[in-house]
């Protein structure tokens, strides 16, 4: 297995060892990559993460807030800027998620996400405790439901890609109409519960949740990672509690084997493995930005394309001055089905056709320049797609800055008047809309885009050096893709400040 790789598909459960468990003593770190073992440095954090009710107590307040938002979506003001559902979810949460949680805390949102939790509680028939016993697929915990395997052909993130594109097509409705947000988010809960009764563990999160797709992709950049300290210990340890569960916790709900985990993509940070590992070998590392650099498969590469292109599309549709495009996207009010069809066609065409074709052309040209005919084009296509991961993340942060700065005043007013019914709970209900330093927004966006370009260049350079022994060939193979990345950066700058 190459450095940084990790099985994308769920692992088959290994045979549990009949032998008695070896004497338990904490593992010592032998990692050779830079990173700070947070649980070693701060033992109380390990105690907190091993505390079984932790996730329950983190999720409960979130569930209550979420229920309140759903209620506000149904019974509050239909005007988005006066409804807590729109203001807190699509302005506050979105900014928090993309600008802080993902880059610094990986998939910490998945730790507290209320969408799949009802299904998980139903599967476990417990809020906190563990139902030990013989479970499905050699699990050592009992699970309610059919516990079927997710179809092998769909064990990838293509459904998440398509789901995200479909939601993106209706984004002008989703982020402005409270009722639409309520039905979409509520529908996702219903779907997650239904799937949890049919398929085993978190199939919804792993294969369907549209948010999970981009969280997984961008968590590769994160400075936080759940990993094992000593992978050799995991290899020699046969019981695999982290995968199969034990009395102290469930097997990984995301089907991941933490002992072989080298990427953040599919780790939902539920910390069950921290609880189940008898050797305390699982820990949380603080590490450099963009430490995971291996994209595996076309589904992940296309996710990177989709996310970058959508940052551009939203910059045109939502932040841009062109009324025609807004009218096309605003189908429920304007009713221009021809325009909406064109808009959807453009979104799908750019994300799945034009941009990947340009990336392919640049990769092919790079291979020609490097004069390495033996190099497989498909490998380079997927590996070099990583260029768009940091650039896409920074583009999304840059896109979200004006959302927060310009519309942040609505957070204060909806805090006091969440339903838009004229309440003034915290005396902030009458706060007038006033953008926060709008003339400085561009000067924040420019360095963000430049930082994104720099991280893209440096990360892809490491990838190029992994693929080509000769640095000159690596540089030549990357040159067209880098030029394309710089062009996309300039395009984003044109939309933001041009």
């Amino acid at each position, binding site marked *: 297995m190459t450095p940084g790789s990790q099985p994308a598909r769920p692992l088959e459960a290994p045979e549990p060892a009949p032998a008695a468990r070896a004497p338990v003593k904490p593992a010592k770190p032998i990692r050779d990559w830079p990173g700070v073992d947070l649980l070693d440095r701060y033992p109380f954090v390990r105690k907190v993460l091993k505390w079984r009710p932790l996730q329950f107590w983190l999720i409960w307040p979130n569930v209550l807030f979420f229920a309140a938002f759903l209620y506000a979506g149904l019974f509050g003001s239909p*005007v988005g800027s006066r409804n807590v559902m729109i203001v807190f979810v699509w302005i506050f949460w979105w900014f928090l998620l993309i600008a802080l949680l993902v880059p610094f805390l990986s998939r910490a949102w998945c730790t507290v996400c209320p969408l799949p939790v009802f299904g998980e509680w139903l599967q476990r028939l417990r809020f906190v405790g563990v139902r030990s016993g013989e479970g499905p697929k050699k699990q050592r915990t009992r699970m309610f439901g059919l516990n079927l395997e997710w179809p092998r052909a769909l064990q990838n993130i293509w459904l998440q890609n398509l789901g995200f594109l479909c939601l993106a097509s209706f984004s002008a409705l989703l982020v402005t109409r409270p009722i639409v947000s309520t039905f979409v988010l509520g529908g996702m809960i219903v779907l997650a519960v239904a799937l949890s009764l049919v398929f085993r563990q978190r199939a919804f999160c792993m294969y369907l949740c549209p948010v999970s797709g981009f969280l997984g992709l961008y968590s590769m950049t994160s400075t936080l990672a759940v990993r094992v300290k000593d992978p050799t210990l995991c290899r020699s340890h046969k019981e695999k509690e982290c995968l199969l569960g034990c009395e102290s916790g469930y097997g990984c709900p995301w089907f991941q084997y933490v002992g072989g985990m080298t990427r953040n993509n599919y780790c939902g940070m539920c910390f069950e493995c921290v609880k189940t590992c008898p050797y305390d070998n699982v820990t949380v590392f603080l590490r450099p930005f963009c430490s995971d650099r291996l994209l595996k498969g076309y589904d992940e590469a296309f996710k990177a394309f989709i996310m970058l292109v959508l940052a551009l599309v939203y910059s045109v549709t939502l932040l841009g*001055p062109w009324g025609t495009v*807004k009218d096309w996207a605003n189908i429920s009010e304007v009713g221009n089905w021809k325009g909406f069809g064109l808009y959807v066609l453009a979104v799908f065409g750019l994300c799945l056709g034009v941009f990947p074709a340009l990336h392919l052309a640049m990769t092919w040209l790079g291979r020609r320049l490097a004069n390495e005919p033996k190099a497989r084009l498909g*490998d380079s296509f997927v590996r070099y797609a990583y260029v768009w991961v940091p650039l896409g993340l920074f583009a999304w942060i840059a896109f979200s800055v004006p959302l927060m700065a310009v*519309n942040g005043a609505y957070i204060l007013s909806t805090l006091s008047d969440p339903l838009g019914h004229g309440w003034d709970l915290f005396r902030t209900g009458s706060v007038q809309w006033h953008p926060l330093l709008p*003339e400085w927004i561009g000067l924040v966006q420019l360095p963000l885009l430049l930082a994104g370009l*720099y991280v893209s*260049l440096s990360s892809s350079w490491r990838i190029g050096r*992994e693929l080509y022994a000769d640095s000159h060939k690596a540089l030549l193979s990357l040159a067209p893709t880098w030029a394309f990345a710089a062009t996309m950066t300039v395009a984003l700058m044109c939309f933001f*400040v041009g």
Partner: protein
Amino acid sequence: MALEVVADVARPRARTRWRTAAILAAAVGLGAGAGILLFNTSGPPKDRDITIYAKQYSFEPPIIRANRGDRLHLKLVSLDVVHGFYLEGYDVDAEILPQQKNALVRHPSQGDQRVEQEEITVVATQTGKFRYRCSHTCGALHPFMSGELIVAPNHSLHGGIGASLGLLVGFALVVRRREPTAAA
């Protein structure tokens, strides 16, 4: 094997890292400076009469281009419901009522007092892109109703483009210098 997988490239030592950072900073700075200097031009200032029509959820014209020093005489007209006109960076906020000739204008830095005016005069002293936004809730897409005033020379854009190109060239030079080729 089609592609030779090479072990992870060793991280540069601290001194090399600082030198690299200095070269890249210089490249970005030079690029930005060159971009700003090359496009540091704008036409002579003049007076422009512009009527801005507001309708759900856009302004017409969507983009106003001006030169530094231009005097913009803005007339605001609403074609449907009550709209606002908040011009970033120029301390102007107006309420535009449908079928009304005059707008209710205020200067946010001077309080909430509004004055009825037929025309708003803005002298384009600041350069770059400034959005004018609807400041009166007018419907579902209200938060995204905006237009753009672009005052030349746009240093932010030209500096940004120059910095991007500088970063690209600087980075290529740095890695080429740092990593010897197999032949060497």
